[in-house]
């Protein structure tokens, strides 16, 4: 995969999301609230690089989630305007 990151896809979220989810994330089904397109998380368009990743709808670019690492914390924002979850990670 890329070193100098440009645009990736939801496949690359498998590792980062595994730190806070107990299920495999890339096969999760997602429906865009903006354009109603649906598909697996793997097909979202992901913009980086780490430590900040933004996953967008492949159809209309609506934000599906943001994942930001900050030290021993991971911030997860679902969609837009819904607040953020902060998870503590074990070092």
């Amino acid at each position: 995969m890329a070193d100098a990151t440009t645009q990736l896809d939801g496949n690359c979220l498998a590792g980062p999301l595994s730190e806070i989810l107990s299920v495999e994330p890339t096969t999760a089904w997602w429906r865009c609230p903006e354009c109603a397109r649906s598909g697996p998380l793997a097909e979202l368009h992901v913009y980086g690089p780490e430590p900040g990743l933004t996953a967008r709808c492949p159809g209309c670019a609506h934000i599906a989630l943001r994942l930001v690492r900050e030290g021993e914390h991971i911030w997860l924002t679902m969609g837009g305007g819904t607040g953020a979850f902060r998870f503590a990670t074990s070092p």
Partner: protein
Amino acid sequence: MGIAWRRARLLERRSQTATARTLVLTAPDWPGHLPGQHVDVRLTADDGYQAVRSYSLAAPADGDRIELGVQAVDGGEVSPYLTDGLPVGAEVEVRGPLGNWFVWRAEQTEPALLVAGGSGVVPLTAMVRAHRAARSRGPLHLLYSVRSPEDVWYRDHLADGDPLLDVRIMYTRQAPPGSVRPPGRITTADLDEATARLKPASPVYVCGPTGFVEAVDNLLIDRGRDPVTIRTERFG
């Protein structure tokens, strides 16, 4: 919670092209993986700075051994170190296997089409090798786009006469002498020939740089391929 980082030791490094390497590592207690999956690799500098990158697994599960395909990116922070700097015997951390979406399973018996752009051939080679190891009956068709003959990875694995594996290499800049197909990017004609041998529900796996994946995806959909049969992985 989460998939633990584990130490992995570099056993062997094989050159694929002038700038691409296969890294063979041993990862104790590796749980196994499916062809198409990847790992995250973490490097830690003396000052504690860490960098994480994702690399596809190039071989089917084989005990504690894993093979990664790494292309050195010009000016890259991690990949040139992995391709040419990391000493054999040294350790890195790996996390995986990762990703259950872009995978091929041995119980799939329909013909499948694999479309690779450049280093996108890495996870598709794992599928080819797993297909052979499982003596799977469904034919595989691989379309592989590279710049020139010097850029072909895994030549030994892709050209061994397996009757159920059909490999077509498409050169974008320089084709070998005697090639019928003129050098150029993948076209509708390239895909038509391959998709004609598929069933409507046959899976198509597309892996490569983002622009390549988008182009192939669009060509397939323009030709009437059902989007739910197309699985993609972008390398950026």
